[in-house]
């Protein structure tokens, strides 16, 4: 397939993910429990998940375990998924919207091997979707689980490095500093410059980091029919949003929240409502915009929707 070079604009800044398939060999798991983790670990994570659902947006501490992959690979998400899986599940894994990156493929095959679950790339066929940095474009339905990989769960961390202090701030709903930071953005740039991991307030109580999804995805978190679960491995936190919860992106009366979507349509499927990645096509620096959600894009294309460079898609398949 076409070599895709994702520009920095599509990457998040606070992640140290490496994409080196050489160093991660999941075949070393010859003898493992169902879904890899031992039962006691799964029980501990399961208890944390129930508390997380009972207190939407609150970060529940948990004792993260070593996984046969580095932290940047989303070990928090992997542990949450492992604790939730049943043999009847059908699992989809996306990395920045794509099902076919090394990272996504490896995690998918890890669960196929350790839990014997079916896998899919189709959002509407999946019962559990593990994601790094995107929410699928296709609307999620009741009964589905969306598991987010989270690098930094604490939305107040860049304002206050001390955990004891951020805990107090959450306890007292003391979120004024967060608003000050966003307002400084406005006075400096004329708009809120935060484009990823844009903080949200869950059900009018806890301010939460949605993980480094583009803020375009933020509105999808609210009134969502699926159960949304968040796992941070290195930072050892689990949090959750129950279905149909009210999730509000922080904003100001005079500067209302703006999803921020580059104008234009996908060059492959013509979608004008999806989140687009800028892709460099060749050595001459030819660029085009395509859906970041590869399943959404190819499904639209299969149904006959075309963009102005759809012929590229067809030649790939041939």
């Amino acid at each position: 397939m076409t070599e895709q070079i994702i520009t920095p604009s599509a990457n998040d800044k606070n992640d140290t993910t490496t994409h080196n398939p050489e160093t991660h060999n999941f075949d070393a798991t010859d003898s493992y429990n169902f879904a890899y983790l031992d039962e006691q670990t799964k029980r501990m994570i399961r208890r944390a998940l129930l508390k997380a659902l009972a207190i939407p947006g609150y970060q529940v501490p948990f004792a993260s375990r070593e996984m046969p992959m580095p932290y940047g690979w989303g070990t928090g998400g992997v542990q949450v998924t492992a604790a939730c899986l049943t043999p009847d599940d059908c699992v989809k894994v996306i990395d920045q919207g794509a099902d076919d990156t090394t990272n996504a493929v490896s995690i998918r095959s890890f669960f196929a091997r350790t839990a014997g679950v079916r896998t899919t790339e189709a959002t509407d066929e999946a019962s559990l979707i593990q994601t790094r940095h995107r929410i699928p474009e296709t609307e999620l339905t009741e009964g589905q689980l969306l598991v987010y990989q989270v690098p930094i769960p604490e939305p107040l961390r860049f304002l206050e490095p001390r955990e004891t202090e951020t805990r107090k701030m959450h306890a007292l709903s003391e979120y004024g500093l967060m608003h000050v930071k966003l307002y400084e953005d406005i006075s400096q740039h004329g708009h809120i410059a935060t484009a990823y991991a844009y903080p949200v307030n869950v059900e009018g109580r806890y301010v939460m980091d949605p993980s480094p999804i583009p803020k375009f995805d933020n509105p999808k978190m609210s009134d969502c029919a699926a159960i949304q679960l968040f796992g941070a491995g290195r930072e050892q936190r689990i949090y959750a949003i129950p279905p149909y919860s009210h999730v509000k992106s922080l904003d100001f009366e005079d500067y209302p929240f703006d999803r921020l979507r580059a104008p234009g349509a996908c060059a492959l499927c013509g979608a004008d409502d999806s989140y687009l990645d800028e892709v460099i096509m060749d050595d001459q620096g030819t660029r085009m915009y395509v859906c970041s959600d590869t399943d959404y894009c190819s499904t639209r294309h299969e149904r006959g929707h075309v963009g102005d460079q759809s012929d590229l898609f067809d030649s790939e398949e041939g």
Partner: protein
Amino acid sequence: MQPDALKGGFLDLPIQSATAFRSLLQAMAQPGTIHQLAGAAPPPSISVAAGVVLLTLCDPETPLFVGVSVDTPDLRSWISFHTGAPFSAAGEAVIAIGSWQDFTPLSAFPVGSAEFPDRSTTLITELVSLAREGSNACRLTGPGIQNFSTLCLPDPALMQVNTAHFPLGLDFILTSSSAVAALPRSTRIEVI
């Protein structure tokens, strides 16, 4: 140890606990929805559903309060053998099993702290039935509930007090024969 204590656990622990947990997750995520649990055969003082919940959530790290109405030597042996959970007073309980009457006054159980509201007891509450209509039918709203849901609750007024403490509070797992529903502290309760 009673000889019967060895029986009635999960035959295939990893799969059965995974399946049971998934139902519990759905129940807690969508308060008031009723789900079925199977796979445990606990001593007769508790329901199948309560037995499944104990097997799924309890282990040596979860001090367990056993309510007087369900407390029998057989039940204690069964719990010890299958989960290893230490028995505790209400004030130290991570999980509790019993009838509603066993749990009052609710103030005996930890509701978490402002900084760690998760450090509160989960009460597995045995009910005669899990019903949507009947006495003490309540209208439930809040996170996890689209529009509203209805469920009969043992003591709506006390449960409203629990909700008023949010984000602190107790979380209830309601069980009856093989049925389970959940009522987290976030659920707002109105008597219909």
